[in-house]
């Protein structure tokens, strides 16, 4: 006997939103995510499988449609698929040696947007977030207050903050507090 159920996901930041005149903070929709590890000789085959050229320069990302690949280290990328295409299946087509681990539920994301987005993040992130040093498309594994995040700039005044699920309450509360009086 198998119970035919369709379970709902319980999202860690369900319903939370913080919005002010100059910055809005809200959880991002769910997405597929893969922590991808591969050595240099596998990059082109994996790129072909993914349909996105893996960036090989620090702090850079690449994007094709709803799929973004973020450089995190010399052999490490975070792949985010916000659409319906099956990420692991696409990767499975790559004829190369690599490691793909599903982290769709490990990470959750917060979108920080508005003219004061960079200043809000800079309350806890020590990186230079000027457009010059951190242009649209830039990404980095960095810190926010006392936690680790992956920061990804998707537009001039829009940032995606990826963090582990259990740190998301802290991340959201920190950003909401930092957004006060901006």
């Amino acid at each position: 006997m198998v119970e035919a159920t369709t379970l709902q996901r319980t999202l860690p930041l369900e319903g939370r939103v913080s919005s002010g005149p100059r910055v809005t903070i809200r959880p991002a929709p769910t997405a597929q995510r893969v922590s991808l590890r591969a050595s240099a000789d596998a990059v082109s085959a994996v790129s072909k499988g993914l349909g996105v050229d893996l960036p090989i320069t620090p702090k850079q990302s690449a994007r094709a449609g709803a799929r973004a690949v973020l450089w995190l280290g010399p052999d490490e990328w975070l792949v985010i698929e916000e659409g319906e295409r099956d990420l692991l299946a696409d990767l499975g087509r790559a004829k190369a040696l690599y490691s793909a681990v599903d982290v769709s539920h490990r990470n959750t994301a917060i979108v920080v947007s508005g003219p004061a987005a960079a200043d809000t993040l800079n309350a806890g992130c020590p990186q230079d977030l000027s457009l010059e040093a951190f242009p649209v498309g830039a990404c980095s594994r960095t810190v926010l207050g006392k936690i680790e995040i992956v920061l990804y700039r998707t537009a001039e005044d829009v940032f995606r903050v990826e963090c582990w699920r259990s740190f998301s309450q802290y991340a959201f509360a920190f950003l909401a507090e930092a957004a006060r009086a901006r």
Partner: protein
Amino acid sequence: MSSAGEHRIAGVGRLTPANPVRFTFDGKAYSGLQGDTIASALIASGVHLVGRSFKYHRPRGILSDGPEEPNALVGVRRDAARATPNVRATVQEIYDGLNAVSQNRWPSLSFDVGAVNDIASPLFSAGFYYKTFMWPKVAWEHVYEPFIRNAAGLGQAPTEPDPDHYAAQYAHCDVLVIGGGVAGLSAALAAAESGARVILCDERAAFGGALRFEAEARLDGKPGYDWAQDAAATLAAMDNVRILSRTTAFGYYAQNFVGLAERVTEHLAAPAADAPRERLWQVRAGRVIIAAGAIERHMVFANNDRPGIMLASAARTFLNHHGVAVGRKVGVYTANDSAYAAAIDLKKAGIDIPAIVDVRDNPQGSAIDEARAFGIRVLTGHAVTGTGGKLRVASMIVEPNKGGAAEIIPVDALIMSAGWTPSVHMFSQSRGKVAWDAATERFLPGTYAQDCVSIGACNGTDRLEESVSEAIAAGESAAKATRKRAKKSKVKIAVEGGGDWTGSMLGAGPNGANGKVIKAFVDFQNDVTAKDIRLAVQEGMHSIEHVKRFTTNGMATDQGKLSNLHGLAIAAEALGREIPKVGLTTFRAPYTPTTFGAIVGHARGELFDPARHTPMHESEVAAGAVFEDVGPWKRAWYYPRAGEDMHAAVNRECRTVREVAGMFDATTLGKIEVVGPDAAEFLNLIYTNPFLKLGVGRLRYGIMCREDGFIYDDGVVGRMAEDRFHVTTTTGGAPRVLQHMEDYLQTEFPHMKVWLTSTTEQWAVIAVQGPKAREIIEPFVEGIDLSNEAFPHMSVREGTFCGVPTRLFRMSFTGETGFEINVPADYGRQVWEKVYERGKSMGMCLYGTETMHVLRAEKGYIIVGQDTDGTVTPYDAGLGWAVGKNKTDFVGIRGLKRPDLVADGRRQLVGLKVKDGKTVLEEGAQIVADPNQPVPMKMIGWVSSSYWSENCGRPIALALVEGGFERMGRTLYVPMPDRAIEVEVTGTVFFDEEGGRING
């Protein structure tokens, strides 16, 4: 007479009479103008007495007009939770309703009982603390310490928690300019117009620095102060500039990292609810331009601390900026020309200047000529050797330096200048070395240690015109150095006027240090006199660092901004050595007092530290769980039902798991996905156990050692595919195990094709344990044959659970038939609810970490970090079976062969049976062989785990005991304060010794 004070002069100053502000000081109502500080507004009302000194409780007034103020410290109180002590009255702007109180006086400011210290002052000389509080020892507790605590510090801290919030901000720039006077503004303009990203900060409410008092200077044809406001507005409008007023650069750290404290709402009558009280800026700058200016010094002479005696530049600021005359009959005592400019400005405003007393024999310069032309009596080669008055200066005693009759001149204020000290604090904090300039008697920036440059008065550049050109050059070159395509700025600033002052005096003036009870103050805040410093030298302090600590000169919250050089000069004279040979004490952060609030910033309340919740947390809360902290995780500890205490709840949970089943949240266990063709080989090296032959779908309990052979962590490892393992770690060990593995992979085994990914939070883990576990989960599982034959203990399968993908583990940390259901984290809560709903109807309970601990102890399963302490090998723990006998290498293999680790008598993990059958031993209790031996007894081990076991009907314990395996069946003792508890050494398995239940 103006309503904003009878000493306000109509038509003078820059404040607007139409903007009155009402405030109180010691309960009395006063009125000032928008733009006033507490100091300027009080002086406008003729109030000079604002506090009592720290040690002698002498009446004290307002000495300066800025952050260097040592005297005029007041409490500012908005409400019980917002009461700030030691606020400098010369910095705090007034707002409607501001409530300020004086400090260090009782019962009132004008009559203070503590002033008896002044009369008794011979008892309180330098080094008083060291000499007095020596003996007898008992007096420390009852007399000395209460006395010191009572006397230590000024002001009253608030009694309630701070309700305000404080913000933090990291910022980067090409050029940080510290100080917004004429030099800083000029440099910022030049750097910004060259294209650099600039941050300019100034500690005052408005930019302009010395232009606040320097009325003669004109820049670009405008009055200097107006030019400064225009320059600030120009900068504020530029996209590449961030301009911060009321912002103190308080600390200069490595690699041009500078801390700034911005006071956001301290000057507002009704701050917006969301506005932070302060904001801490942590700035990383390509180059720092220090334009910190110079600080005027006071003259050191007898009774130079009476209210009404102040720095000449302060009097000039009060007049030219605030429109306030500091007195009606103002005496002047100086060694520097700048006091003449102040005297002339006061004279022009109609104030009587009875005399300028100049300690120099023959000062020359336009300022002196001009003063004479105004008909002011100038006494050169004279000194002020004392003052009269009590709560306010009433007269000055003037004597010729060469000897002769003293003259007493009535005054109601006395302004003074001993010259200007370049503010090298920030430069010195950057680890730059100062150099002594003998000609001008001052320390100037010498050798630089970081990419910074000093300009203007803090660099010893005196003339306005030179300051401006130096600043423009510094701004342009900073832009060029930090930015690839810097433009050439077109900044040109026409300069007219500005003081050209010479003259300096360091140390005490004539007669200032003579006589036994003469108080010629060097350090006002710590009540250090010239005599104290001479005494310190006499008593053998030859280093300025010792003199400083013995006298406390320069150790107050003003960091000796006025006193350091005077103290140094007096010490040098007493020692008969040159000033640079005696040395300068080190400047340390913070430049001015910085609040804890600013430094703590956002890190309070829920943001003090992240609290990690599992996906099932809310369900556990709803089920009435009591939580415990395990690192940052909140874990369900036990689930009490109505009327149950912890003991009863844990007993029930323990029983239910063994009789029916229990469900436990195991999400916090660390998980690492180990992937790659060499994954098995890698794990074979990391763990003591063999891993090469572990089949796909099988689990193995693994022990991980450090290189030294001691247990580092343990956990269950599952092989998901030939090249993919699912590794679990202890909850607390998750980050360090990943780091340990990554470290070996990168340094010892870099040839291996293996990648590690933390998946701790990818999976929610629900353990269902007990005889009915299989029956409970069965209806939810699809794609996995749950039969004992197809899915035996220590195996793993993939399938679906409630329709979502699962990695289902058949394993047990209880000794019962058990499953650990791994599902993607966002499904955890719903799966938990489904399983609980069904399990509950079958008699299953929820259990927490306490029950988990008891159940595993009943089976003798260790907890790394509780039953091991970093000196326990797998063999010591009785886990020798987990060390691969045929393995030629693994981390720790050589350590395990060290003589000490194979010697007899090592502490080994054993069970303890308490002979009385009811006493639960204390964890951590020591164990002895003979309870009757004399104290100190020989300890042979300690209790590592101890619980009441409801399932065994008796207490159980694990212990590490020397030669424990050899002592089976022997009686040992656990000495307690009242008795020694008799215990028998046993094996570590207390329940189901045959172990059949696990395979049920």
